[in-house]
């Protein structure tokens, strides 16, 4: 029964036009970044390849451009859409009065929230995978299917080269899945605020505020030594899956912390939601 109810929740989510806003923006963004990559980026990439003694086909490839599309945009651009959907999921229904209809049915509030939370998580993960697939598809159209993967992340001190397409693809795919899990933190934050008695826009802004404050603090030079305490640093740890020697201990630690945070946000959000009165 839970699965059929979850299907209903997803049906509601994907029946709304604003759910697709992020998809449209990302497709436009992918076209834009690939156009720039082809028109302007080629010379710069050639220069970088020559300076670092890396074969050009590994830098100027569909996998590498997909990495740039995802890694460069998901954090700042994707977070807006995850916060928008997460912030809406409870607060909008509460504001519109739909929750009265839902809560008048024989269903517990915990189940209602679980359905909504799972719907948001599914949206987040599938969105990241969607960006990966469309980004790669467009890159293949623009640059061709072959080539390896070049990864450079100065913040995490990662510099890796995968000359073989197969290994590069697997690394990028697994990385994208973990990136999806990381982005669930933004959705969880927005979901958490959405459980309070507030407008959907307020829940979205609150979630984005927390996320960006954390991001800004993490990048302060004088806080570099304690970067590991920031959520956004932990969220970035998906990129370690693209490092040649994968630091599994660090990845397990980060994703345990992020999962704990998600669960805590859900539980506190549920307690708030449970204590609320919904006037008929």
């Amino acid at each position, binding site marked *: *029964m839970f699965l059929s109810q979850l299907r*209903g929740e997803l*049906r509601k989510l994907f029946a709304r036009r604003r759910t697709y806003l992020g998809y449209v923006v990302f497709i436009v963004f992918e076209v834009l970044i690939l156009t720039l990559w082809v028109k302007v980026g080629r010379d710069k990439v050639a220069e970088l390849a020559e300076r670092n003694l890396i074969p050009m086909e590994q830098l100027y490839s569909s996998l590498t451009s997909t990495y740039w599309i995802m890694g460069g945009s998901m954090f700042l651009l994707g977070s807006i859409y995850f916060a928008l959907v997460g912030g809406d999921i409870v607060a909008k229904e509460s504001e519109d*009065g739909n929750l009265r*209809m*839902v809560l008048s*049915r*024989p*269903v517990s509030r915990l189940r209602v929230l679980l359905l909504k939370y799972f719907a948001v998580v599914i949206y987040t993960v599938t969105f990241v995978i969607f960006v990966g697939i469309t980004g790669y598809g467009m890159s293949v159209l623009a640059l061709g299917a072959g080539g390896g993967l070049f990864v450079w992340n100065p913040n995490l001190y990662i510099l890796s080269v995968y000359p073989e397409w197969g290994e590069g693809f697997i690394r990028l795919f697994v990385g994208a899945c973990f990136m999806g899990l990381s982005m669930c933190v933004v959705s969880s934050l927005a979901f958490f605020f959405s459980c309070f008695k507030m407008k959907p826009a307020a829940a979205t802004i609150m979630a984005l505020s927390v996320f960006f404050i954390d991001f800004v603090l993490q990048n302060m030079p004088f806080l570099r030594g304690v970067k590991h305490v920031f959520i956004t640093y932990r969220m970035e740890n998906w990129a370690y899956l693209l490092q040649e020697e994968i630091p599994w201990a660090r990845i397990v630690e980060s994703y345990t912390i992020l999962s704990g945070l998600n669960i805590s946000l859900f539980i506190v959000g549920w307690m708030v939601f449970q204590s609320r*009165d919904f006037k008929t």
Partner: protein
Amino acid sequence: MLRIENLKKRFAGKKALKGISFEVKRGVIHGLLGHNGAGKSTTLGIVLAMISADGGEVFIDGVSVQKEQVKALRKVGAIFEAPSFYDYMSGWENLKVLVGLSGKFDHGQALDIVERVGLSDRIHSKVGAYSHGMRQRLALAQALLPEPEILLLDEPTDGLDPEGIKWFRDFIVNLRNERGMTVLFNSHLLSEVELMCDRVSIIREGALVFEGDVNDLRDDRLGFKISAEPIDVLKSVVDEFGGEWLTKSRCLFPPEHRVANVVERLVGAGAKVHEVTPVRRSLEDVYLEFSKESSCS
């Protein structure tokens, strides 16, 4: 079927319910009457576990809503004053999502109910394009699925046109007659309660001021509309018979007084009686009377 025991609720320190208790018997249409802000919707909210009670308990068919919410609400269907559906989905999709929360969505049963409420032609249109009357029919359909034993209606006819109100009223009365449906009907429309309900509870400022049979209320006293002058003679007769002024020229007399006696006394005192019209006391009179009594005490 529904038992409400000593419900208490405060909002921001203000008492919204002051210990309300009443019972709705199986197969009865029970009106919950009161002015706006009297506490009717709060009572309904507590019955549906949407509002937590500060004290008291609600039982639906013997099951406590506060202790076993999901089990208790399995027998309930509810309709609100302005039903809020997902406007971007069709009526049918709305039904599937909402009824799915109660368990399995039965296609055949849903089609049957949709036909009964007269929405077959438009059930696959987006709800955003529905009129208020159609929304209310859809609300009725979702409330009747899967198979409730009690319907809770919160001012369901507000905003409907006269034809819509009559249709709705007839539909609910038929449900009671044919299926033995129990109904709790919240309203401030006295005429609606009078036309539909078997029993009535009157709430004023969070307290129950009356509970009883609608017919008993209507028939227990007879009023007379009297137009006579001079006014001071009329006043002295009203005082003598224990009558009660409703308006400048209208008063009520207890049933033990016969109209002939009142008129004889007026004429005897030299008054000119222009008109004497028997007036059946309406529920509105009763409501105002009980409200007044309650506020005096």
